[in-house]
């Protein structure tokens, strides 16, 4: 129990305080409180309640079915440009919020993906998921989206290369959440 408390020592107080706050807001008809809960919090819950469990089950399936050798060969240390393209493609077809990408990064790492490709994966997933892109083009126009993506790609490859070097040099690991 103490272990559990220690692991989430900031999370539990926030959750409990929020529950009390929302209950009191409803009791006293405090509009900002109700709006925070109904418009914002509930919107996020709806977004993640389906996306995340689905991503985690995909991660579980990937873990039991795909061999380490296979992953290593395609997106491992010596995979080069082809590996980079593959990992970007994998990230682009993803859906859901950025925090759904972290468990995927963990399983990719565990199966032997190179550190640089892990960080390319994270950046790609945050800049251009295809489902969101259609939405972006609809609201801001094709020029905006194309400019944003083509300028972002070289920059985040540089960021990922630096991160990969740092990660390998310091013997860092991606943990299981």
């Amino acid at each position, binding site marked *: 129990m103490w272990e559990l408390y220690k692991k989430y020592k900031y999370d539990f107080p926030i959750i409990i305080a929020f529950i009390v706050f929302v209950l009191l807001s409803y009791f006293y008809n405090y509009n900002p409180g109700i709006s925070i809960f109904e418009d914002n919090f509930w919107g996020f819950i709806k977004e993640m309640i389906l996306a995340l469990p689905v991503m985690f089950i995909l991660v579980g399936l990937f873990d039991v079915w795909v061999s380490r050798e296979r992953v290593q060969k395609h997106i491992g240390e010596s995979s080069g440009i082809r590996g980079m393209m593959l990992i970007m493609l994998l990230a682009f077809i993803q*859906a859901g919020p950025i925090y759904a990408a972290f468990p995927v990064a963990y399983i990719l790492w565990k199966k032997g993906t190179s550190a640089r490709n892990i960080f390319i994966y994270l950046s790609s997933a945050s800049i251009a998921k295809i489902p969101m892109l259609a939405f972006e083009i609809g609201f801001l126009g094709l020029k905006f989206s194309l400019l944003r993506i083509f300028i972002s790609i070289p920059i985040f490859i540089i960021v990922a290369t630096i991160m990969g070097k740092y990660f390998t040099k310091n013997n860092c690991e991606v943990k299981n959440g």
Partner: protein
Amino acid sequence: MIPIIILTAILTIVSFVFDKQKTKKAVKKGVMMFMKILPTLLSVIIVVSVVLYLVSDELLIEYLGNEAGLGAYVSAAVIGSISIIPGFIAYPLASILLKTGVSFSVLSVFITTLKMVGVLTIPIEAKFFGFKTAIIRNTLSFVGAILVGGTMALIYHYY
């Protein structure tokens, strides 16, 4: 999202047909990982919900609008880095901002930092990557996002 859900459902069924034990193990593993991250996820969502309430549309228009000058770029970078606004809210909001006179240049900085930097999601990232790596990655991404946003701003300004 729906195609991914369908894909996952099909893959799970196919996997189950081939190997019951393996599939059970896979689903159990996924569910356990989800439960483990759930408390942190909830507390991050709570903080984001409160921040999102405090950063109202009117506030954004005031800080990102044309009268704000160079300050608009700084506000765009700061607000973009701190908030995580899901796309289905962010893009309609961005098009409202455009109509109220916020320039494409400022919006570029706002959208790129919004996407590439997540100060509020650092607690979740840290569970997987460690605190130090999460901080370094977000700092580098911030520099990157400013470069992307800045380049786009220049292009929109001159062309």
